């Protein structure tokens, strides 16, 4: 069993970050690795059990199933059904916690999975760095304290 844990601080209130990340079909809107996404069977993206089917920009199709979603805990768990990565029993959880000191967000993204022993290090890096940390970096940039309001960018 490989365990991966990545955490970060995002300079925005947890409710605002959650608004963005709770959409199980919304990865392309904020995660830099994801090209497109759809929910299979025309189901709502917040229906527990729904399956997102998405493509990576680098190529590769992944299907993931929503296991739990909590607007109370700001947390979401999902499993991988099909992917080209070569992982099994993959379950991941993304969780946000408010940091009251500064009204910021403590974000945690963790996963457990099985794979062949020789690929453990590589996959742990892929999941922890490229997927989780890459996603956090995009969120940090999007909510950066010094970021220009969108009104300015449009001008």
């Amino acid at each position: 069993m490989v365990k991966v844990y990545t955490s970060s601080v995002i300079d925005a209130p947890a409710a605002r970050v959650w608004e963005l990340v709770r959409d199980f079909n919304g990865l392309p809107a904020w995660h830099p690795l994801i090209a497109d996404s759809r929910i299979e069977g025309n189901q709502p993206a917040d229906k527990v059990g729904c399956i997102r089917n998405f493509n990576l920009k680098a190529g590769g199709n992944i299907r993931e199933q929503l296991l739990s979603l909590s607007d109370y805990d700001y947390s979401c768990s999902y499993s991988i059904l099909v992917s080209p990565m070569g992982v099994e029993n993959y379950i991941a959880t993304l969780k946000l916690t408010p940091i009251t000191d500064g009204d910021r967000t403590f974000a945690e993204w963790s996963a457990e999975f099985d794979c062949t022993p020789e690929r453990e290090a590589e996959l742990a890096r892929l999941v922890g760095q490229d997927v989780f940390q890459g996603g956090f970096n995009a969120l940090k940039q999007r909510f950066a304290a010094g970021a220009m309001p969108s009104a300015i960018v449009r001008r």
Partner: protein
Amino acid sequence: MVKVRRSTIIDAPVDEVWRFLRDFNAHDTWHPAVAESRIEEGRPVDAIGAVRRFRLRDGGQLREQLLTLSDRDRRLTYCILDAPLPLIDYVASFELKPVTDGARTFWDWRSEFRAPPGQEHALANLVGEQIYEAGFEAVKRHFGQATGAARHRTAPAQSSGTAMQAQAVFLARYGGPEELVWQSMIVPPPGPNEIRVRHNAIGVNFIDVYCRTGYFRMVEPPAPLGMEAAGIVLDVGADVVGFAPGDRVAYACPPVGAYAEVRNLPADLVLPLPDFIDDETAAAVMLKGLSAEFLLHRVHAVKEGEIILVHAAAGGVGHLLCQWARHLGCAVIGTVGSRDKAQRALAAGCAHVILGGEDLAARVDAITSGQGCDVIYDAIGGDSLARSFPALAERGHIVSFGQAARPLDPLDVAGLAAKSATVSRPNYGHYVGTARDVRAGSARLFAALERGILKPEVGLRLPLRDAAEAHRRLESRATVGATILIP
């Protein structure tokens, strides 16, 4: 059941913070409220069930019992056995987690308890602020972290999304200073893309006089006057990015309405204020400095070696124009109305100063060996442009940016051909009206302030309610340096 929860980030690796905090008896070494503590019956500090008996600095005695200690989860849970306050069935726990992308620590501290009816809120605040937040600050200091950063200060309680009452100086109708009246108003919660700001210092400018008289129709009375202030963000409206309650900010732009204790503003016209600029300096320099910025860099981009003439060189904008133009390598000639002001103009970098009674054209002719000035900055008005014209070089540029004395006389455009002259008549709102202009102009201004190129001075401070007196002094030309109002 009352629930209290506070959390923070400590700039140290989680294992170090946990080593420091897991000792159930060490809080008298770091928590500012705790005077001394000991474990009863000589038990080990990490024995579950151990009781710490401690005394607060205010004299209160407490006993608390350790319920959980987990080195794996970095979590500690305890309850109150005896306390001087009615914190009934109080159970608290704190937990540390690593922030993996920066070797920092997330610290969550929470509790649940019951309290007598009516005391829930006060006790929740006491626990949250005096125990948890005070503890956070102490531990941050222990790990060498700056505390109380302005960015992360929480908003004062009275600003929580409700309308506020505030005092302001209203323009009753266009006219003299007597039309400025002190009255109260309701400031609604900030709307989308707005922030609500409490002013600490407000700038007074000639543009306020032009607004007051109705020369500029930028404000429709009755309404508060003023275009420049510095203060602190109270709260932010929907969709606002980049500002949080407690941020220090400043602005100098329409919409008019700065002569007020509190107001709402479009967030994208407001600037975060760097630490090296205090509120009074910001109120003194934002509008005048942003004016100098666009006059010297955008209306006419002055070049090293150019000869420039600055009228009213000891005045608000004139003074900054001289300092900045000198730094940019220009030869600066200033005109002033009195000998005292001449000293001030020389100190600001003028190579030559011409007094009001002197023959301007003859003096400039002598100083420049007949060449004349490449640029003339004029905010005097009346016939000043016509009187300045003989002092202008061929292909020179007259920049008329104000009318402190009286409205401009008509200009003989055909006559400009005598020198192939250019005349500009810039409007502040057209150069400092959009978010992009505000950001670009202020970046240059703040850099000039930080490097000491500009040295703004506050010449007169008055209470906000005395804005009319500030206008009288400004119009009588009695002021030296900037005039600011303090709410």
